[in-house]
């Protein structure tokens, strides 16, 4: 049982503390409740470009000095951007807690004075190289982006990936960056989580000192997060610079944390992950028509998605792969799953969760997520309960309800470009 305390500063900043002295470290983790879903069509990639900008200094911290301050005392740090949130985090030797708070509060409260066109130009180039390296110059690199385009309507906020488009990145101006900061980067849109070796009373005093004076913002822009049904299956075939055909599937689900999403999470472990799982066993181990298969749910806040992919072996038609997958899914819906399969899936959830809690940094990130999305970080102590309470019928039911043609988008990446 983790000791979790959450409270709020006068300016709306939510603070979560988890005291743990087993290592002389402290994890400082901030979740800003803004991601690529808060962008508009034609202005994509901002949340992520902005994440890069936040490492380029603030009023009292020089360009690149943020990295230097943290690394030069033995800290590790980074930031990531997703559909629904942007997180920033550092794990420091615990006697440097105040340093982490100073750095994070400076870029929350004093970022704009240090912003320059030159910094934007450099980071824009870096992000374009990131896009080239991770999307455009590698096989299947654009598959996720294509799938989002296919499965979500152009005006829906999950239609584009966090990296954004080259054109939109090119068009980003200093004013855009300033607006984005003023709208979203504020204490009342943030959760600050501390995990590790500190005395809570001392930590609270430091947090108040550094973050208390930062003013909250005005009203938030409104976003419609209600997804319209697809109105039938969507399919596409993409010729690509790849050696082996690959099938990508997205099944729509309820959002993360709902009972059905949890059952779907267990379902993905029944479908894939080791030799004995349904799809691995049938397609990879027995029929040997697929090189690999994978199924997983994404931790998304607005609406849920179950992703499925399978790579055909050389000379195998992608249609044969699709038929074999659909046969397994139909069999599962018809005959259900065994008690052993459920036990293995719950065990897997249990050990992955234990791994996540093991290190302060991943624990802080989990706690920050629970506070941001559910306003209750103590869920960290009960998260697995609904997994353990799930039945074989629950898992079969979620499969029968959601893994159906009218609820899916299917994309074939085929060799041939």
């Amino acid at each position, binding site marked *: 049982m983790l000791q979790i305390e959450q409270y709020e500063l006068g300016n709306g900043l939510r603070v979560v503390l988890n005291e743990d002295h087993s*290592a002389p470290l402290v994890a400082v983790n901030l979740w800003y409740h803004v991601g690529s879903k808060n962008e508009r069509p034609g202005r994509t990639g901002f949340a992520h470009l902005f994440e890069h900008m936040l490492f380029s200094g603030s*009023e009292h911290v020089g*360009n*690149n000095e943020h*990295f*230097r*301050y943290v*690394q*030069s*005392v*033995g*800290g*590790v740090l980074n930031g990531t951007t997703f559909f629904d949130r942007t997180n920033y985090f550092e*794990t420091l*030797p*615990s*006697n440097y*807690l*105040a*340093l982490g708070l*100073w*750095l994070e509060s*400076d870029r929350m409260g*004093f970022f704009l004075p240090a912003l320059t066109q030159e910094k934007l130009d*450099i980071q*824009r180039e*870096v*992000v374009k*190289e*990131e896009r080239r*390296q991770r999307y455009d*110059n*590698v096989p299947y690199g654009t598959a996720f982006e294509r799938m989002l385009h296919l499965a979500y309507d152009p005006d829906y906020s999950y239609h584009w990936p966090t990296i954004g488009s080259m054109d939109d990145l090119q068009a980003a101006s200093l004013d855009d960056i300033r607006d984005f900061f003023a709208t979203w980067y504020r204490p009342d849109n943030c959760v600050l989580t501390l995990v590790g070796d500190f005395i809570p009373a001392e930590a609270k005093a430091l947090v108040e000192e*550094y973050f*208390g*004076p*930062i*003013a909250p913002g005005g009203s938030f822009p409104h976003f419609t997060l209600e997804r319209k049904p697809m109105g039938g299956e969507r399919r596409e075939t993409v010729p690509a610079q*790849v*050696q*082996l055909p690959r099938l990508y599937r997205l099944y729509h689900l309820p959002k993360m944390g709902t009972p059905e999403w949890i059952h779907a999470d267990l379902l993905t472990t029944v479908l894939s992950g*080791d*030799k*004995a799982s349904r799809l691995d*066993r049938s397609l*990879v*181990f027995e029929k*040997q028509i697929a*090189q690999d298969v994978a199924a997983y749910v994404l931790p998304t806040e607005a609406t849920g998605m179950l992703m499925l992919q399978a790579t055909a072996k050389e000379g195998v038609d992608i249609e044969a792969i699709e038929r074999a997958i659909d046969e397994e899914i139909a069999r599962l819906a018809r005959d259900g799953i065994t008690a*052993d399969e459920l*036990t*293995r899936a719950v*065990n*897997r959830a*249990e*050990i992955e969760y*234990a*791994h996540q809690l093991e*290190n*302060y940094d991943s624990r802080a990130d989990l706690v920050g997520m629970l506070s941001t999305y559910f306003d209750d970080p103590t869920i960290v102590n009960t998260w697995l309960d609904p997994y353990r309470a799930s039945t074989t019928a629950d898992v079969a039911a979620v499969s029968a309800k959601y893994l159906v043609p009218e609820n899916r988008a299917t994309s074939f990446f085929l060799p041939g470009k």
Partner: protein
Amino acid sequence: MTKMTIDRTTPPQPGPPRPYRFPHITRATLDNGLRVLVAENHSAPILSLRTIVKSGADHDVAELAGLASLTADILDEGAGSRDALRLAEDVGLLGGALGTGADWDASYVSIDVLSRNALPSISILGDVTYKANLPADGLDRVRSERLMELLQQRDEPATIAGKRFAGLLYGTGAYGNSVAGNPESIARITLDDIRRFYGSNYLPNNAALVISGDVTPEAAIDFARRSFGEWARGAEPARPQVTPAPIDSSRVYIIDRPQAVQSEIRIGHIGVARSSEDYFAISVMNALLGGVFNSRINLNLRERHGYTYGARSTFAFRREAGPFVVSAPVRNEVTRESVDEVLLELRRIRSGDIEDRELEDTKNYLIGVFPATVQSASDIASRLLDMELYGLPEDYFDHYRENIDAVDKDEIARVANKYIDPERVLIVIVGNAAQIREPLATLGYPLHEMDIEGNPVVG
């Protein structure tokens, strides 16, 4: 409006440092020669179990490149009384994940598992380690998967660059192959080859067992005896020779990918073995040069010029001298400029031009970050494996931080001059030849072109 209430102009001073100790390690040796290392840690209900066999792809001959890793791949195709599916099911029922693999120096079997199932998990680890069934249909399966994997690598520029760089540096010697082998060698490997490699290398006196996490040392060693005690000793395998030929002048190789939107750059030469007495000085020097985000090479290429998403330098410390390599993916237009900047940084680190602050920053990073890199049971298990594999002293990690701290500027300059030679580098670039050929020719080094398999391109 924000208002100032504290002095934000200078960073706050740290509190007194809190004490840190590397976890206590309990050691035992079984009658068959198997070394057992246990690190007890009850902070999570997890156990990391690892067997390490001290023979890896360095034992592969060129004709059978990939033998060590293919052998590792087939271990989970059935062991003891369990066939492949039963093995996967039983590991899943224990709440475990089973992994096998090989790298240059060693082969591994691992199970990460819920600690309440310690004994049956260690028993399965033993079966997979020394009672693998090595079935013929299992070889068919892993061979086919490996061939597909090698096929897919033809479109992965970073993989191509790494392979060609190693091939040019080490020729047909072990480090010149790929751990994964090549399509011809993988097609050639027979079940007899695998049985021979397994039989002559998977021996308790050529191995170690690491148990890290939520278990007492007494119980762990008892479980080890019960599950590994029957493993029969054998003749210790001979250590293979890796005999690279250092290059005597710089040269450039272009591997054409006409559709590439980035150049994958590799610059370097043969490095140094893990056993080097200069290990700590080289580690600090490389961290300052290109080993961490705020290092010279990354700050130059990424933060000053915006050429890349990330550039780094690495010394591959292996049993014998692995490569020293600087790697960077950069956009086509700045390929030549990026090579220039890397060479400039290699020359500068040798000149002794090192600021006090950057040396202190780098050492403080390596010293301070150490506890954060050994928090989880599996991280600690990896460190214990390193100790066994490279014969590090028992108190190695207790003194790691003071050894880093002892490195000074003169040492940095000395090892930079001894182990980095910017005038004799191999430069390999996977990219759009039509766009980068002419600018690279102006470097003034001999320029060659080859295809992704390493065959020369003529005309």
